[in-house]
């Protein structure tokens, strides 16, 4: 969802993700499904460059991507806010402690018109957990900044052997809309 003056090229946010993952040699995409992430999940399934599948839990997905990463295949975990909330122990003890650059992309629920109180509450835990682990995290709100942030941060994650999280704001994706 565009918010201001468009750059010359106007791409969908999920197209930017696919292109940037490819450019940075990140072929493994493991996800726990989310409605907002649906176009991205569809796009990676339709592109033979990617190895992509659903895991049963976000913890499992982090384990798979961590293992692949140590064996030389870069990967990313897709999830929503409530899924990230299940991860504090695993993130602290695997990618952070072992310095494995697991990438995470989190579709943000719980703000800007959330209709589910549980989602609104769990949203408040996400950034404090990331910040308390000193984990690199960026909230993406503008499509014109997205490629730059994602591309540079992926390069940084692998160069510094640090996991990184990208929080996709409803300002970028449109989010999930409550139909009264």
């Amino acid at each position, binding site marked *: 969802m565009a918010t201001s003056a468009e750059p010359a090229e106007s791409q969908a946010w999920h197209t930017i993700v696919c292109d940037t993952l490819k450019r940075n040699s990140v072929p493994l995409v493991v996800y726990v499904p989310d409605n907002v992430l649906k176009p991205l999940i569809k796009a990676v399934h339709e592109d033979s460059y990617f190895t992509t599948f659903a895991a*049963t839990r976000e*913890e*499992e997905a982090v384990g798979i991507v*961590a*293992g*692949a990463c*140590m064996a030389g295949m870069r990967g990313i975990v897709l999830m929503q806010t409530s899924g990230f909330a299940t991860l504090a122990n*695993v993130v602290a003890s*695997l990618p952070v402690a*072992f310095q494995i650059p697991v990438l995470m992309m989190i579709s943000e629920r719980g703000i800007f018109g959330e209709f589910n109180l549980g989602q609104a509450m769990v949203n408040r835990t996400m950034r404090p957990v990331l910040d308390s682990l000193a984990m690199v995290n960026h909230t993406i709100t503008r499509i014109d900044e997205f490629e730059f942030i994602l591309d540079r941060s992926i390069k940084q994650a692998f160069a510094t052997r640090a996991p990184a999280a990208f929080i996709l704001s409803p300002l970028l994706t449109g989010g999930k809309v409550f139909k009264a």
Partner: protein
Amino acid sequence: MSTQPIGPGNAQVMNRFALTKRMVATLKDEAVIGGIGNTNFDLWSAGHRPENFYMLGSMGLAIPIGLGVALAQPKRRCIALEGDGSLLMQVGCLATVAMLKPKNLVIVVFDNQSYQITGSQPTATASGADLVTMARGAGLAQSAWASDEDMFDEMMARALKEDGPWLIAVRIDDKPGVGATERDPVIITDRFMRGLGAKTSSI
């Protein structure tokens, strides 16, 4: 092997360290992921190899980590060692492995029917949960109990040669792990990556 009528009730009760040593003695370049606690303590004590990864924390993730390694390096066999309590915590991973069918993944489950390292509280396998039946139900057809050490050797030899995924379950005693893994995660990662050829820079 999948037709053998061996179950947790009639399989011989073996020892994790003894089995781990037998297994390690037959390995070449296979990756091995040791699950939390005694499982990786015994892997460490059986003799360190650069292709070993010792998981500290993240209980239940030895199989997912092994799956990731297997996907990244399809020409290398990967063995994930896991305990009964750990597998019960992340049991959905069996369905994910069955969905992806990695030919090069071997899962070994050590079942002592307890959360041994926290004080030997009983797990659900002590009350009849059968991890091989659960694995088959998840779609892992090549899952079986080893009746004794000789059968474990045979099953492992086959799993290292023929297409997987494989799941080998063993009933083990309540002996604690032998020794303790050197707990330096960054060094563990570095050695493992070099052991797998994923990192080649000189230091």
